[in-house]
């Protein structure tokens, strides 16, 4: 439900002219709420940026979010990030 609330926040911000990008770990809510820009990770609840202490992983997720912000051209995009949970190497 955190993902639904986040999407609702994005909708209000964008209507007021503030750009936003959301990290989603529950695709169903993101599809339904239609925030303007989201990245989706099939990761467990409580871990949208990854694992504690894994700075490279957290940065990789942030980079994906910011890249979408820079490249998205139409509203409602959900970028499926292929990072596997605990089985990915980050540089």
């Amino acid at each position, binding site marked *: *439900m955190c*993902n639904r609330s986040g999407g609702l*926040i*994005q909708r209000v911000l964008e209507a007021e002219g503030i*750009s936003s990008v959301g990290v989603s770990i529950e695709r*169903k809510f993101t599809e339904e709420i239609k925030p303007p820009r989201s990245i989706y990770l099939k990761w467990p*609840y*409580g871990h949208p940026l990854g694992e*504690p202490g894994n700075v490279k992983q957290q940065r990789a997720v942030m980079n994906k979010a910011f890249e979408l912000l820079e490249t998205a051209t139409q509203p409602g995009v959900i970028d499926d990030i292929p990072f596997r949970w605990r089985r990915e190497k980050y540089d």
Partner: protein
Amino acid sequence: MSNFSRFKNRLLAKALTRFPILARMMAAKVKPLEFDTIPWAPLRGPLKEMKVALITTAGVHLVDDKPFDMNDKTGDPTFRVVPSSTPAENLAITHDYYNHKDADTDINIVFPIHRLAEFASEGRIGAVAERHFGFMGHIEENHLDQFINEQIPAVTAMLKEDGVDVVLITPG
């Protein structure tokens, strides 16, 4: 809500984190909200010139601030201000609907406050906003009107006051 109910919620939250399939089954049961249009605010300029704020729905707030209301089982639509200079040890999480054991050890996995500061010092973004914002994302239908029409607009006004261009939103 009784202590037993809170205990039950936390136990469920642990199970949802360990078995994501359960979380998806529960999500499938929530009544959908419907929207026809999608608002769109284009990025105002290059990201390296943008001022960025964080909003999380992971229940983050200052240790000294009022915790989110866990006794109302339909949620709490209010928000907490988190100054971007807040040290990690002054942050707390109040949210019984996901397991935040890992986030308690590293807040950045739900609220990337230190990562954002790094991106600013490296020039990837222009600046970090003075204020970030925490919500507790378990907000059911009876609180949605207040959430959408009062609480989020109040945050939006503060973001405008701070000259924020971009917001990164993270769940719990």
